[in-house]
């Protein structure tokens, strides 16, 4: 089952590469996305054993992140249909590679979630970079080219450091008294209490820097705003909603080894420091932002910071961090879809040239307002609860000022976002152009995601709450 989840999208990607008809490509894309979601839902019904000599193995955190990826990918593929069919692009060559790369991207992200072999996971994370780089370059503009180059080089170099960290962990385990272990999470966790501490700590630092680059933690985030703003909107949604989480999961795997070693204080401190740095930097840049896609990109950095701080605080905040991963993905993917609708209608990403969205694109406008409030932490949407849980743990912890700083930075980010988005929404809108830009499929995915974010705020389904609790329990919660 797990191997099929990885291989089938990859094979369909190859098929899509050789098919000549765009409609067949789209059918392949949506069909794969649907099948992926159904298979993932099936995995929730029971345990699935390890496969391929324990190279593939699914645990609760893996299932959680796999499900996020699957949901976001399905909504992105539905959104892609009108995007591809009625888009303004006219480059058939780019189009030909677009859908295959999307499918390979899905395959690589799935592999990150379903493996617990840290070297294989590394190969999968690097695979996500390689599959998504051509997607970022879709529009073939100079800006897109620059963004693609930065993305490729910065992330490849960052991830190379994570490979070094992976090897360091192997070296630490090989020197432990239990003897050499393989690089699976279970083997490393067994060896963890006996690992040479300097190698273990160096391994975590390298993994945090390496995968943190991919996750967009400050000060390693430099590629993220450029890439998210230059990529086509469905790709930005996938990058923010699914890919950043995969990088977070990779960091969590190293964190699990640190927890098993019984010596995790340094890892917690590092997670909190990088998380707070991300919050600080993101809210500063959001206050002075002129480009609404960059605004959402910085908001992603902010939210990755929130997740990192939550995980570092531990206890109830670990649960909050995982819950926030779900909430953020729902909201941010939706926001990038809506940004795509606005961009298609107004033809610019500069916020000052966009006025009267509520008049011209009523559905998009209302959803944009709702999702802005949701990601800003306004009740009754889901993010409010996850942020509140983390805030509460910070206040109750040893450093209460951390909680105060945390909530002030959230407030600052909210103000920054409001300052850009509210003027865009209001203002005179020309009624004549209504309807032309809003096809049903470009509004339905963000509507579904916004509804899900609302439901997450009102009532968390028991199966999800249970899984979140179990995953948090494995992660110091």
């Amino acid at each position, binding site marked *: 089952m797990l191997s099929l989840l990885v291989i089938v999208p990859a094979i369909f990607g190859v098929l899509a590469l050789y098919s000549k008809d765009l409609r067949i490509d789209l059918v392949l894309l949506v069909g794969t996305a649907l099948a992926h979601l159904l298979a993932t839902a099936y995995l929730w019904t029971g345990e699935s054993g390890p496969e391929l000599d324990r190279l593939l193995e699914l645990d609760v955190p893996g299932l959680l992140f796999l499900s996020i990826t699957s949901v976001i990918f399905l909504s992105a593929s539905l959104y892609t249909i009108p995007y591809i069919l009625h888009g303004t692009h006219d480059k058939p060559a780019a189009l030909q590679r677009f859908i295959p790369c999307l499918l390979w991207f899905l395959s690589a992200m799935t592999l990150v979630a379903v493996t617990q072999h840290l070297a294989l996971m590394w190969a999968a994370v690097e695979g996500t970079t390689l599959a998504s780089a051509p997607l970022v370059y879709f529009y073939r503009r100079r800006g897109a080219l620059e963004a693609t180059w930065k993305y490729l080089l910065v992330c490849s170099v960052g991830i190379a450091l994570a490979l070094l960290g992976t090897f360091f962990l192997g*070296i630490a385990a090989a020197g432990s008294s239990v003897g050499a272990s393989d690089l699976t999470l279970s083997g490393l966790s067994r060896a963890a209490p006996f690992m040479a501490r300097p190698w273990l700590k160096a391994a975590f630092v390298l993994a945090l820097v390496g995968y943190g680059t991919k996750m967009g933690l400050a000060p390693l985030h430099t590629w993220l705003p450029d890439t998210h703003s230059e990529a086509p909107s469905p790709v930005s949604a996938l990058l923010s909603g699914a890919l950043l989480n995969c990088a977070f999961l990779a960091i969590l795997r190293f964190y699990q080894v640190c927890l098993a070693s019984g010596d995790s204080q340094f890892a917690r401190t590092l997670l909190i420091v990088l998380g707070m740095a991300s919050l600080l930097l993101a809210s500063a840049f959001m206050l002075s932002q002129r480009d609404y896609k960059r605004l959402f990109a910085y908001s992603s950095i902010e939210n990755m910071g929130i997740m990192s701080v939550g995980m570092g605080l531990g206890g109830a905040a670990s649960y909050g961090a995982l819950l926030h991963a779900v909430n953020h993905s729902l909201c941010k993917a939706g926001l990038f879809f809506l940004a795509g609708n606005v961009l298609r209608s107004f033809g610019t990403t500069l916020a000052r040239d966009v006025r009267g969205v509520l008049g011209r694109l009523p559905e998009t406008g209302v959803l944009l307002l709702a999702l802005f409030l949701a990601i800003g932490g306004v009740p009754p949407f889901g993010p409010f609860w996850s942020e509140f849980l983390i805030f509460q743990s910070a206040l109750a912890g040893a450093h209460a000022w951390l909680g105060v700083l945390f909530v002030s930075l959230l407030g600052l980010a909210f103000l920054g976002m409001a300052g850009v988005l509210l003027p865009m929404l209001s203002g005179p809108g020309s009624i004549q152009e209504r309807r032309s830009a809003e096809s049903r499929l470009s509004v339905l995915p963000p509507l579904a995601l916004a509804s899900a974010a609302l439901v997450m705020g009102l009532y968390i389904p028991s199966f999800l709450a249970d899984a979140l609790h179990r995953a948090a329990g494995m992660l110091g919660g």
Partner: protein
Amino acid sequence: MTGYADFLLLVVLVIDLYIVATSRLASCVHASAFQGVALALLPLALWAPGYAGGVDPQVLHIALMSVGTLIVKALVIPQLVLRAIREANVRREVEPFVSLHLSVLIAALLVGVSFWMASVLVLPMPAPTTLLVPVAFATVLVGFLVLVSRKKAVTQVVGYLMLENGIFIFGQTLVRQIPFAVELGILLDLLVGVFVMGIAIHHISRAFDHIDTELLSALKD
């Protein structure tokens, strides 16, 4: 037979310094290819004599990795980068951020730092050879130096390759822990990575008429 291994590691180290000191892009790539040859031989020199009696089950694994490394790092990747150089029609690294003389000096300093780091971070198991860890650190650090001190996209790719080579040397301590399929995956990632970077360089040189990454700075806040 650590004698062979030490010789290969010294070759790697000398090539590190040569790449820093040279401005001709093609020479950098050729040197990087030679480094690939040395790295392909390294697992054989380190492990082939390591078993006594019977057949080491890892021997096939090591031989295949050696061949794979040779093909990818010494043949295919250098060809990809050389093609990018031809298409972009650049020969030299003109005016790097840090002058060549100064960067050689820094590189020498980094090699010293690497030996110091290796004395602090001691392998928790018997080291195959005492040179392994310092040369691995040195290759990683000098690779970083090349990455940040040069402007041409091609040289940055060479720096990235050096970084990967240094990590590869660390990996030699773990040959028995990593399954062949995963090692193959890591090698494949590197190959596809350089392939995609080559395509990107091709597009950059067509769109901008140069491959100076310094000028790729239109996107900012």
